[in-house]
């Protein structure tokens, strides 16, 4: 079965410092992986996705993630945090079933950015 585990429920960084949000996945086939962001009282916005092309995926707002099959990881990074990055981040894997798919979400990581 497909699953993702987000290793940190809360991450706190100072503005201008790097961000690392960790995600490990479990998949019985080559996975499609996503990172979504949810700002307070907002919907879910796609940051980036991996679909078996380049292992380093660039997303919006300076975020990127690297797919590492040997480590079954898909960690999200950003070189320099901005106050507006404070939000909940979800690592997501697609589960395929009979030609249809559904998203399996991790528990989420709440990112706090301090001045």
């Amino acid at each position, binding site marked *: 079965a497909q699953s993702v585990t987000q290793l940190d429920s809360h991450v706190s960084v100072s503005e201008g410092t790097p961000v690392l949000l960790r995600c490990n996945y479990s998949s019985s086939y080559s996975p499609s992986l996503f990172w979504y962001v949810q700002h307070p009282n907002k919907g*879910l*916005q796609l940051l980036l996705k991996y679909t078996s092309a380049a292992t380093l995926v660039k997303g919006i707002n300076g975020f990127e993630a690297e797919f590492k099959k040997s480590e079954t990881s898909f960690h999200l990074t950003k070189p320099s945090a901005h106050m507006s990055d404070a939000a909940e981040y979800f690592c997501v894997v*697609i589960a395929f079933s*009979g030609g*249809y798919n*559904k*998203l399996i979400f991790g528990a989420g990581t709440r990112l706090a950015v301090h001045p």
Partner: protein
Amino acid sequence: EPEVTQTPSHQVTQMGQEVILRCVPISNHLYFYWYRQILGQKVEFLVSFYNNEISEKSEIFDDQFSVERPDGSNFTLKIRSTKLEDSAMYFCASSAGTAGYYNEQFFGPGTRLTVL
């Protein structure tokens, strides 16, 4: 840019009442989904819908739940007799397809359902 919309943004209802949550998916999308997020918990898949039929549903999606595409634009989730534990944020999503580039699911802003 096209987006998924949901109404209402917040719905308060009494236990046992019926509620209908409405969604307008992106116009050229063919696959539709409902997810929910109970406060403090994971986002969970409820149901997927394609070609006017349910394609997959989770264990959560019992007989109290139903989905419908009543016209060419709306996609609704009905809860027949709400329970306290149905209180959650409900997200609608749509996608153009299910493979490759087209499998990206676009989410609406959610409807917060509060059952009293």
